[in-house]
C-alpha cells in the first residue's frame, strides 16, 4: 500500500525576470516527516519557498507540485494557504496600522474558518503560544512586524504557525536571528505540530543547532537551484564541519 506524499515536487524550474533560479527540483515529503534544506547564500532556498507559496514575481517554467495529491501550482497564494501551506518568512513584511491580535484572528478565520478564530479554545491556544514564545500580552496591540526586533519577527511567524496549524510548514531560516531559547521553542513547536500527525515540515537553515532539536528525516543540499545531495542527519554535521566545497567537487566529479 502506498501513501500519498504530503508534498511532491517534480522537475521544478522557476525564473525571475527571465533568469532561471530553480533548475529542476525533485522532493518528496511523506506525512509526519520533517525535511531540511541547506545551501549557500543565493543557492535558491528562499526562491523554492516563495515558489511553493506562489509569489507572483516568479514564473514556473517546468514541473509540478502536489500537496496531498492536489495541484498546488494552479492555486493563488491565499488558496495555497487555505489548502494548508504555511511559510515562515525569512524577512517578514510589516503592515503598519494592522494590529497583531486582529491580524491573527482574521488569518486563522480565513484559513481554518470563522469558528476556529472564536471562543475560548482559540484564546487558550493564543495565550499558550504567546507564553511559550515569551511574547507579552501587549504584543497583540502592536502593528504587524512594524518595528519588531529580528527575534520578535521570527517568534511572531511561529506564533502564526501554531495557531494556523498548517499541513505543510515551510520555515525559511526561522532560526537565524533567534536566541538559543527561541530556537528550542521553534523546534518544540515544529515537533508538536508535525510528529505523529499527517502534517510535514520543510526547514530551511544554515545551522545544525535547530536540526539537533528537530531531528529531520532527511537533509537536502541545494546548489545553484538543484538538490545535489540528500541524506540523513549526519549530513548536517558534515556540512557544519567542512562547508560545501567537498559536495561541489563531488558533483563535478560525477558530471
Amino acid at each position, binding site marked *: 500500500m502506498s501513501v500519498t506524499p504530503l508534498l511532491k515536487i517534480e522537475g521544478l524550474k522557476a525564473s525571475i525576470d527571465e533568469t532561471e533560479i530553480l533548475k529542476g527540483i525533485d522532493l518528496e515529503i511523506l506525512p509526519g516527516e520533517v525535511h531540511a534544506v541547506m545551501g549557500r547564500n543565493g543557492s535558491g532556498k528562499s526562491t523554492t519557498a516563495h515558489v511553493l507559496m506562489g509569489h507572483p514575481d516568479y514564473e514556473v517554467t517546468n514541473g509540478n507540485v502536489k500537496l496531498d495529491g492536489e495541484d498546488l501550482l494552479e492555486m493563488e497564494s*491565499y488558496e*495555497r494557504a487555505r489548502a494548508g501551506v504555511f511559510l515562515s518568512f525569512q524577512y517578514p*513584511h*510589516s503592515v*503598519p496600522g*494592522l494590529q497583531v491580535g486582529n491580524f491573527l484572528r482574521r488569518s486563522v478565520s480565513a484559513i481554518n474558518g470563522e469558528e476556529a478564530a472564536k471562543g475560548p479554545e482559540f484564546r487558550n491556544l493564543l495565550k499558550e503560544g504567546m507564553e511559550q514564545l515569551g511574547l507579552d500580552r501587549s504584543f497583540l496591540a502592536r502593528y504587524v512586524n512594524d518595528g519588531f526586533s529580528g527575534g520578535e519577527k521570527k517568534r511572531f511567524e511561529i506564533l502564526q504557525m501554531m495557531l494556523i496549524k498548517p499541513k505543510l510548514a515551510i520555515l525559511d531560516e526561522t532560526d537565524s536571528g533567534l536566541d538559543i531559547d527561541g530556537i528550542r521553542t521553534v523546534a518544540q513547536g515544529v515537533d508538536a505540530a508535525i510528529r505523529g500527525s499527517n502534517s510535514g515540515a520543510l526547514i530551511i537553515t544554515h545551522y545544525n543547532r535547530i536540526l539537533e532539536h528537530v531531528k529531520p528525516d532527511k537533509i537536502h543540499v541545494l546548489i545553484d537551484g538543484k538538490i545535489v545531495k540528500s541524506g540523513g542527519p549526519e549530513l548536517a554535521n558534515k556540512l557544519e564541519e567542512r562547508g560545501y566545497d567537498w559536495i561541489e567537487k563531488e558533483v563535478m566529479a560525477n558530471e
Partner: protein
Amino acid sequence: MSEDAREAVGDYKAGWHDPENATIRFDYGLSEQVVRDISALKNEPEWMTEIRVKAFHHFMERPMPTWGNMHMLEEIDFDKVCYYLRSSNATEKNWEDVPEDIRNTFERLGIPEAEQKWLSGVTAQYESEAVYHSIREDLEEQGVIFLDMDSGLREYEGIVKEYFCSVVPFSDNKFSALNTAVWSGGSFIYVPSGVHVEMPVQAYFRINAKNMGQFERTLIIADEGSSIHYVEGCTAPTYSTDSLHSAVVELIAMPGAHIRYSTVQNWSANVYNLVTKRGVAHENATIEWIDGNIGSKLTMKYPAVILKGEGSHAEVISVAYSGKGQHQDAGAKIHHLASNTTSKILSKSISKNGGRGSYRGMVTVSPKAENCKVNVVCDALLLDEASRSDTYPTMEVGNSGARCEHEASVSKVSDDQLFYLMSRGHSEEEALALIVNGFFEPFTRELPMEYAVELNQLMSLEMEGSIG
C-alpha cells in the same frame, strides 16, 4: 433600479433615493429674491435677512478660488441648483412622527439604532431642514442646548447674534458667502461651564433630491471647562447630475473647554463638497477636528483653528480617499496667536483608479507668540500608477522660539506586502483592504467604535473589484 443607475451607483451603498415629496421647493437658481424668500419663510429677524443679502452680493462679486481644482469648480452651474427644499413640515421629537419615506432612509442608514446605543443626542437633516431632533433629558436638565440652527436662532437669538459669523465672516471665501446667504439647518449647541457631555452628539445630513444644494450652518459654543464631542455623517443618492454641499461650521472653545468635531463624509460621487470649518480656542482650550473624506466629486475643506488664548491646543487628524473621478483637496489651517500654544496635524490620503488627493496646509505663528510647538505629518498611499498625490504645505513662523516639525511621505503598496498577507489566507482584495485600513488606523482609532467599523467596511468595499 435601472441598469444605468446600478452602474452609476456601483459599490456606493447609500446611493438610493426616495421619491421627492417636497412640501416647499424653490425653483432652480439664485437671486436676492431667493435669499429674501428663504429668510421670510423662516420668519427671521431683520438683522439676519440683512447679513444674508450682504453675503449674497459678496458671493456674486467674489471670483472663484484660483487654486484647488479650478477646472472642476468652473463646472458648477449655480443656476441649476435648488437652494431650498423642505420635505417635512416640522422638526419632530418623536421618531414615529417623521414622514415614512424619510424615516426609512434614516433607518437604512442606522440612525435611530445608533441613538439608542451610544449617543447623547441626534439631529437628522434631510435636504434643507432638520426633520428629527432629540437630546437626552439629563443633558437638557444640565442646561445643554442642542437644537437645529433655525430653532437656535428663534429661541436664543442673542447668543446666535453674538457669535454668528464671528469665527468665519461671510467674506472669508466665496462659499462661506454662499452659505451665509442661503443657510438652512445645521446644529446649534451650547454647553454650559463645567458640563461634560460624555457621549457624542450626532448630526446626520442626507441630500435626497437631484441638483440639490445643502447649506447647513453649525455653531458650537463650549463654555469654560466644558467638553463635547460632535459627530457628523453625510450621504446622498447617486445621480448623473451634480449636487452642491456647502456648509459653514463655527466653534468657540472658551477657556479650558474641549471640543472634538468628527466627520465621516461619504457623499456620492456627484456631490461638490465645499466646506468652511473653523474654531477659536481661548486659554488652555482644545479643539480637535477628526475629518474623514471618503466620498464626493470634489472636496475642498481645510478645518482651521485659531489658537487665540495662551496654552491652547489644536489637533487636525484627517484622512481622504480619492477614487475614480474624485479629487479630495483637504488639509488644515492653524494660527498660533498666543504663547505656549501647540498644534498637531496628521493627514493621510489614499488615491486609487486615477483619483487625486491633495494636502493643503497652512500654519502660522505670530511674532508675539512665544514657545509654540507645531507638528505636521502628511502621508500618502498610492494604489496605482494612474493616481496622484500632492502636498502644498505652508508655514509662516514669525517667532524664532517656535519648534516646528514637518514630515511627508508617499508610499505604494508593495507586491511583497500583499504576498505576505495572501500567504495568510487573504485574497488580494482582502489583503489590500487590510493594508488600506491599517494606513487609516491612526484616524480610525479616534472615531467612536461604530463609525470606525463602518469606515473599515466602506474601505474594504472600495477595494473590491479593484484588482485587474
